[in-house]
């Protein structure tokens, strides 16, 4: 199967962590897109996820299941290979546990069409738990974007639509910082192209035990910091500024209740 059918203009890359328990919901949200011209590349991280992906993709020619990626480095390499091989004009990453709002692709696509000098558009998002309950708005995407502000906070995500040409010009996905590959790419994009913020929550990011920010929080903090330091050096800011990472941590201890209770009732 080709990476992109003749009508598809958006290539959606779908990394699948853990056992792919949420993948059906993810693909359902993709199927419900009002923007029809997309093609998805599923990148499973293990055999269980791959088997589930193949079952779900069996009757769906727009879905292609890639080889299994066993660790974060090969996962980023797989994403980069899929992105590089795609002839689509646009690229998007949809985590295999998350879901898109029905208008997500159409809205971001329209935003980039309206601003031809912009290479990336990103939206707000909502955090949900493993059961799909809303935890609240994604906090970082509420922060104002600027290339400088991006050094301090990764507000550009998790839903982004990239112009493929801008992706290539920025150097694409690299595995220098495998647990912060998205952030690293966004930093490089912010140095080479304009970025559009669409202030609508178009994405549901699921916080669950296999989610990267839970399962690999330490590696993510380290790699994000390294990507930040590299960006500071690329931008020539290291002559004026020293870099540092401040980490606050706290323990939260809660009594388990035999019955969780119903909100609103005493």
């Amino acid at each position, binding site marked *: 199967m080709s990476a992109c059918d003749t009508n598809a203009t958006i290539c959606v890359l779908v990394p699948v962590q853990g056992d792919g328990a949420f993948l059906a919901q993810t693909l359902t949200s993709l199927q419900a897109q009002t923007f029809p011209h997309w093609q998805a590349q599923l990148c499973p991280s293990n055999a269980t996820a791959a088997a589930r992906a193949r079952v779900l993709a069996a009757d769906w020619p727009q879905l292609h299941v890639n080889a299994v990626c066993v660790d974060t480095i090969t996962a980023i390499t797989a994403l980069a290979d899929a992105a590089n091989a795609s002839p689509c004009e646009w690229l998007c990453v949809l985590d295999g546990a998350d879901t898109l709002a029905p208008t997500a692709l159409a809205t971001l696509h329209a935003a980039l069409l309206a601003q031809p000098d912009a290479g990336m558009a990103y939206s707000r998002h909502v955090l949900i738990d493993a059961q799909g309950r809303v935890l609240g708005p994604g906090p970082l995407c509420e922060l104002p974007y600027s290339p400088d502000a991006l050094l301090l906070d990764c507000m550009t995500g998790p839903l982004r639509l990239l112009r493929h040409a801008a992706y290539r010009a920025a150097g694409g996905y690299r595995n220098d910082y495998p647990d912060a590959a998205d952030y690293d790419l966004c930093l490089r994009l912010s140095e080479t192209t304009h970025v559009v913020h669409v202030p609508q929550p178009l994405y549901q990011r699921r916080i669950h035990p296999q989610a990267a920010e839970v399962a690999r929080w*330490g590696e993510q903090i380290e790699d994000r910091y390294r990507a930040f330091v590299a960006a500071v050096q690329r931008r020539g800011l290291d002559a004026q500024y020293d870099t540092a*990472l*401040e*980490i*606050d941590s*706290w*323990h939260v201890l*809660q009594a388990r209740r035999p019955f969780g209770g119903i909100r609103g009732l005493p």
Partner: protein
Amino acid sequence: MTPPLISIAVPIYNTAHYLPAALDSLLAQDYPHWEALLWDDGSADGSAQLAAAYAARDSRFRLLGDGRNHGNPAALAQTLAQARGAFVGVLDSDDLLEPMALAAMLAFMQAQPQLGMAYSQYVEIDEAGALLGPGRRFATPYSAHKLLVEFMTYHFRLIRSEAYRAAGGVDASIDESADYDLCLRLSETCAIGYLPQPLYRYRIRQGSVSVSQRLRQVRSSFAAVERALQRRGMAGSHSLSLGIRARHVLKPKPQSPLVPSA
């Protein structure tokens, strides 16, 4: 009645620049009945020679260690195992004790024989020794339960030796949070008191803790509390979660002094 001996462990690793101030702060103590257990953990910056010079001057300084690097928890456990005092404490080799520290803590504990450990307030100083301000950890009132979520029993701690041994002492296998782990175990076996006097100068050194080491500290502290919950029979009834916030910081570099042109 013979005044009790206080054993102060001073694990040393490449702190030659700060070590004399630390050891001088011991020599300046109002209370004279102490021994300092100087464990050089394989320093390469002359710290061992400095420690030896102090030991040659004053027999209360005892030289320990085999010249090899064992890591801080192992060094601390081995050092405290050789303590001869009725009370034990720790002075980090880049920090300082206030002159009244040992006398004040000893009086506090002698007045309350039920205490197995007492801790004080501390102040923070910079690399040059200038005062940065009061520490913050002790602001949270102590309870054995609160200690699970906040490490308020920070410097300076004085522990009754029998309480230290009864709690199992420093666990040499714990990498980054051996002191927190020890305090958690002490909180389960003895009463702990708080003396609201700043008796310790804790030095903040820029870049002294790497990102990886800081993350290991976070993980290790969390693991210490998980073990405490198991010991206390709370693992089934309570859930523990970790909150973490990481901030990238850009700090303007210090201005170089202007050099007049020739």
